[in-house]
């Protein structure tokens, strides 16, 4: 058995002539937080959807706990334990915390054909789970719309974990949040990893990623620029890599050149 919980080896995805992903490799151990960094258009969304089973990779293989697997639908990925929390969180603001928590997977009780949604049990679990991450939901029947952005994010993550995620794929969990809220979410992510989950944190915010990540994979124009352990790379280097550092360097040179010509005249 290898060290890795999940491996995505040489994943490629093409849409017609467009190469959305080419030879992207990511390997995660239990308890590891891997940050997937990339600018807009780097192929992050395509990669997430491939991990979540929405897209089938055209090349490459997914190995989960030493077994090679093929996802035919998002449900397959869910069943095996890859829980994806999308940017829109799949929460309905008008519905209660409990009803959101168990949406699509409601606990039932009673006799067949007359089964009822076990609201008491659901309320208890939801309040319990939220309590574990420090969010005191006094009334689990309150609407999710009344919660803050960070709390909603935590609810969505907590739900994915409760329903058996071993690998958490988080799509920009902090992008819409302020510093305080973002730190609350990041803290929760670290806690989840410390309990043995592997986390893929997709973000374009190095400042959020660097403190919590163990390793960093940088995606640029559909290609992986490599995976780096935290000790091997600085925040600045990461930043310049993902922002297309070379391009910025080039721009700087050009600007200096223009400046020089201008001064000559």
């Amino acid at each position, binding site marked *: 058995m290898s060290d890795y919980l999940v491996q995505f080896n040489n994943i490629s995805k093409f849409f017609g002539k467009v190469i959305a992903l080419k030879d992207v490799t990511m390997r995660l151990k239990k308890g590891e937080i891997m940050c997937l960094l990339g600018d807009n258009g780097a192929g992050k969304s395509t990669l997430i959807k491939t991990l979540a089973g929405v897209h089938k990779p055209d090349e490459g293989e997914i190995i989960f706990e030493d077994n090679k697997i093929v996802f035919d639908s998002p449900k397959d990925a869910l069943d095996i334990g890859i829980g994806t929390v999308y940017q829109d969180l799949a929460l309905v603001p008008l*519905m209660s915390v409990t009803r959101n928590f168990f*949406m*699509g*997977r409601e606990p039932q009780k009673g006799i067949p054909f007359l089964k*009822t949604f076990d609201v008491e049990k659901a309320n208890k679990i939801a309040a319990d789970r939220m309590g574990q991450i*420090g969010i005191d939901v006094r009334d689990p029947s309150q609407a999710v*719309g*009344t919660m803050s952005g960070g709390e909603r994010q935590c609810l969505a993550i907590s739900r994915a974990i409760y329903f058996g995620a071993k690998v958490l794929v988080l799509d920009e969990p902090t992008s819409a949040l302020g510093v305080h809220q973002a730190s609350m979410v990041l803290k929760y992510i670290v806690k989840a990893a410390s309990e043995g989950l592997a986390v893929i944190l997709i973000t374009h915010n190095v400042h959020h990623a660097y403190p919590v990540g163990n390793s960093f994979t940088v995606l640029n124009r559909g290609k992986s620029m490599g995976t780096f352990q935290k000790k091997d790379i600085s925040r600045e280097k990461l930043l310049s890599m993902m922002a297309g550092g070379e391009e910025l360097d080039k721009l700087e040179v050009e600007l200096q050149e223009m400046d020089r010509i201008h001064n000559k005249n």
Partner: protein
Amino acid sequence: MSLKSKSISSKSSLNEDERLKKISSLRVLLNRPELGALGGSILVFIFFGIVAGDTGMFSAYGMLNFLDVSANLGIIAIAAAMLMIGGEFDLSIGSMIGFAGICIAIPAIYWGWPLWMSIVFAFAMAVLVGYFNGIMVVKTGLPSFIVTLAMLFILRGLTLAITRLITGRTQVPGLRVLIEDDPLAWLFATDTFKWLFTWLGSLKLIELRTDGTPLATGIPPSVIWFIALTLFATWILMKTRYGNWIFASGGDKVGATNVGVPVGRVKISLFIGTAVASTIFACIQVLDAGSADTMRGTLKELEAIAAAVVGGCLLTGGYGSAIGAAFGAIIFGTVSMGIFYTDVDTDWFKVFLGAMMLIAVVFNNYIRKKVTESK
């Protein structure tokens, strides 16, 4: 930077910052979707109690009269409300009523089918129509407004064309004689609790005819159906998994799909629900009148939607209640009958209906903002 703020945000600060604000009990009450309609019903009863308290509106006979009208509307309003919570509309309810009417009458009168078979046939057609509406909306992604508007015309046209083709007229009378001894028709045509009214009549507590029998003979079937459907729909919405799926499908289609809710199946079943409710409505009315009319149910879809909206349903879906829609129907039913007992010209009923709906929408919007307000 993040690390630092991470350590600062301890659990206690979270509690103090964001969770300490007490929600007042009034606010909790305001969050219930049916509150507006309940309050409205009480106001309507107080109003007519003052204006028409001594006119016979609140005699047993008068009350059954406006309850019957409310109940008929309520049967379709509840189904419409459930569909609206699920995020869709059905404008073909009224046409379906007319269509179901002739589906009962023509086979029974012209083809010699037993009445129960015609009734089963009408319900089968309703399931088909509802399924078609649903599958069209789900598969094409078109707004249900357009799809069911098309169905409104198609069904009404079919009803008229088929009836005229087969009977040469637009009405099919002669059903009343078939009701007796039919194994199914009694479900839609029997007054219940007759003994209660006879007893009350013998005590001279309710109005009597000149021959000594009570004027109000029993609870009409519509009222029983109305109560049963209200309870059933409320049970589904509040107490079952399927109910949660209805809210989820209407609240956020994409999100619901992502967590495994079969949104398409939920919506299709709700469209079948409105068509079946229309058929229940049609059975009651056709068997009561003894005849089917091609124009029966015209504009009922709009009244049903109005009652659902007054009952707290949001036009955008994901929020509302069956009890609310029931009270919405009671408001409309009571006013439409009660207006006869006042000096007000009945022409004003529609004005009231419109104004009531407008007030309800403004009120609902306000409530929705309150419910989803971020702290």
